[in-house]
């Protein structure tokens, strides 16, 4: 899967949770991805360079890995 697109999708989710505060937004983003993304999409995002991700998404990816 094209990583640019996945990054964009993850970031869009994070932006819509942003009003909850960073920690909650990261948790909600991780949960959303866990519930709605196909394994190959999750795997591609997890394998992505963290520095290319927005801070909330990077934190969400940490949560998904943990």
């Amino acid at each position: 899967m094209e990583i640019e697109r996945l990054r964009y999708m993850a970031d869009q989710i994070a932006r819509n949770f942003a009003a909850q505060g960073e920690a909650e937004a990261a948790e909600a983003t991780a949960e959303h991805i866990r519930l709605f993304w196909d394994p190959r999409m999750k795997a591609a995002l997890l394998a992505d360079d963290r520095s290319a991700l927005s801070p909330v998404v990077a934190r969400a990816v940490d949560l998904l890995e943990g």
Partner: protein
Amino acid sequence: MGFERQADFGTPESGSAEQVRLTIDGRAVTVPAGTSVMRAASLAGGAIPKLCATDNLEAFGSCRLCLVEIEGVKGTPASCTTPVAAGMAVHTQTPRLEKLRRGVMELYISDHPLDCLTCSANNDCELQDQAAAVGLRDVRYGYAGENHLGQKPDLSNPYFLFAPDKCIVCSRCVRACDEVQGTFALSVAGRGFASKITAGQAGDSFLTSDCVSCGACVQACPTSALIEKSVKAIGKPERSVITTCAYCGVGCTFRAEMRGEQLVRMVPWKDGKANRGHSCVKGRFAWGYAHHKDRVTAPMIRETIDQPWREVSWDEALAFTAGRLNAIKAQYGARALGGITSSRCTNEETFLVQKLVRAGFGSNNVDTCARVCHSPTGYGLKTTFGTSAGTQDFDSVMQADVILVIGANPTDAHPVFASRMKRRLRPSNGKPGAKLIVIDPRRIDLVRSPHIQAEHHLALQPGTNVAVLTAMAHVVVTEGLADEAFIRERCDWDEYQDWARFVADERHSPEALEPVTRVPAAELRAAARLYATGGQSRSAAAGTRKANSAIYYGLGVTEHSQGSSTVMAIANLAMATGNIGRPGVGVNPLRGQNNVQGACDMGSFPHELAGYRHISDQATRTLFEQDWGVALDPEPGLRIPNMLDAALDGSFRALYVQGEDILQSDPNTHHVAAGLAAMECVIVHDLFLNETANYAHVFLPGSTFLEKNGTFTNAERRIQLVRKVMEPANGMEDWEVTQALANAMGLGWTYSHPSEIMDEIARLTPSFAGVSHARLEEAGSLQWPVNAATPDGSPIMHVDGFVRGKGKFVVTDYVPTDEKTGPRYPLLLTTGRILSQYNVGAQTRRTANALWHSEDVLEIHPTDAENRGIRSGDWVRLASRTGETALRAEVTDRVAPGVVYTTFHHPETQANVVTTEYSDWATNCPEYKVTAVQVAPSNGPSHWQEDYAELTARSRRVIHAEPAE
């Protein structure tokens, strides 16, 4: 049983709970108070002669045929306009009445052609019946006097004709157009002997008038003055079968009136709880596609998509398909395969397709067209209320005091429900009409139509729904209009307080957001107050019934980057004002396709099994695994846009598409085409070689709704039976095709009737536990949930509490879409639908409905048009960052400056070449409603359109099988 018209009780039901006892012709009768004497007599098994009365319309009292005598009452009152009274003694047949009625009939018949034997309505004519009933034997006046005979018929409408010489000017057609449809296209011109029914203005025909061809006048006509051309061509039907329409999510039920296997006409069924005897031009008339010459009835295959199609036997087609699917699965794994269920097919068929994907292919890569329409409704309402569906039945609208319509155009997309809504918006019998708020970038018809005027039309900038709704919430909270008693009882109070603090922030005030939404703050405040209070002042509200405010919404809400947020913002607003859980209120998504609600219910989404249960939930998965005898993948699958993305990187290779044309309906056509072209096995199961089939390797011919048994579920969660009236032209119902494919893959399915599939659904889905075909036969229809707690279904949801427990307020921050206008693309394109066409038009384009809409046109504001030198009718180039197409312009102030609008019904235009891949953050529902575009004059179709026309022609070459010796 032979053909019989549906019973007509003469006047509508009174709806009163109070019962009144009277005698009619010596027989004791008990009926609800307010019932007419005519209806009471009819309920008691009698039939008072009548011509101007019919039970779809208010009593009119003009024909003077239904006169009765009542003991103690002077004269001979009309039974249609006389309500029953306790102890009343009515006589319906006396020498005096006999003479009066015969005199009336004699006058009618003296000016009526006596060509009954060759008349289209022969033996199905109320005038004929009444002449018989009153014993008319002679016309003393003769026939030589002045008369209306020999007038030319109006044949302009493709589906029905108007023969003025057969007209008795009872005005039933005029009243049907006014009361039932609400279009007011017909009137009686002239007076006395010169009275004549006319459509539109002087010089108009039925086709050029405002007539929307709903058929209500034809249904109301007691003679052959207004009659279906098909009846004229074929003759009187011999039997009728009740079935459910396969067009929009309203789910009208019809009597399919047949001769043999030939459909003569579709007549709306008065006992249908969704449509209450009404119809629109699509359901009533546009069924000719079923036998259109383009219909493919034999299976076809090809090795590669550049080859012509080859007609083959079912066995060969299925073996070829199963072989490819198994090979791809063996080489690339189960997750390389997927399917799309059809929102046009039955629940049973949809359930089987997702079962084939999950249990047969072994992946959860199953999705449905709701992905591109109401998936945000699923997400948003599940999150806030706990269930993925609308909260009300359609009848509920009749009890609303305020109706808020946002991002929906019911008169075009849900016409039969729109007629009901319009009925509530007009004052009736002294009761004021409901007040209307419309939130839409376009001035939709509902904003101002005969006898209807919206209190507020908030013509917002496309893409700012969340900002507008948050500003409305700001007004509710800061002006003390929230229903705190309701919230404390029904919702999570802490979450409410978080939300209230958020919306009360000054940056969410209507004034602060006006530059973004372009909605004048004062207008927005007034609309918010009206919705919250129902128009009652607080002092007046004390002690009286709480006013009812209802929200109806459509794809203008969901098809945005923030579609899910908007749905949740709507839910927040309804909860904050206590407008949930009783008749007259609620959150009502107007669902697009006939069975899109059902497709969602049946587990068509990649993350959930039937009944909206997540695939990761082990208990649910185990239930299905035990029933199906397979292990299921616990991870969610790919959604449609993800499938296309995954196809491009080679990890997704096979797709089974039932009854859906993703190439035309999904955004960014180039991307969809590239995704499909990258796949090794695309199976299209449809009626026609649609646009997606240009990229298919297998074509499995499908069956129409007239050719199958099963159920559809409409927008009010109403499950209704679909009944077969003719044999499938392709030889199999669609569920049989899916089963044959499953069995070719070795799954060993043995369903012999769709009722067995429904039994499996009921066994595995708690909200369908009490549903079976037998139960539906008995009840007529059922609204889920149907279970032990609600064995007769649930017209209204969340009555005593929310399905999820406490209602959840969700903070919905306005996040602007990334699709921005700029110097190169300064206008915003929004897309929608028109009355006469349906979805991608595959069905309606193949009917005479094309007369009303033969091409997509671009609506553009006069200012924007003038700046570009564009006049109505000119070809224009419509370009976005994604692609470009060309179509004709229509200059109109229906759209605001800066906004352009078109429909997506025609593949030649292919509006989706222009739409982008931006989508809802939560569900990937495409942002069809906001695309930055430029419009410029052009000479004609674009290069893409010309190339595409050539590709289409090349893709539809067929080598026919040799006929068997």
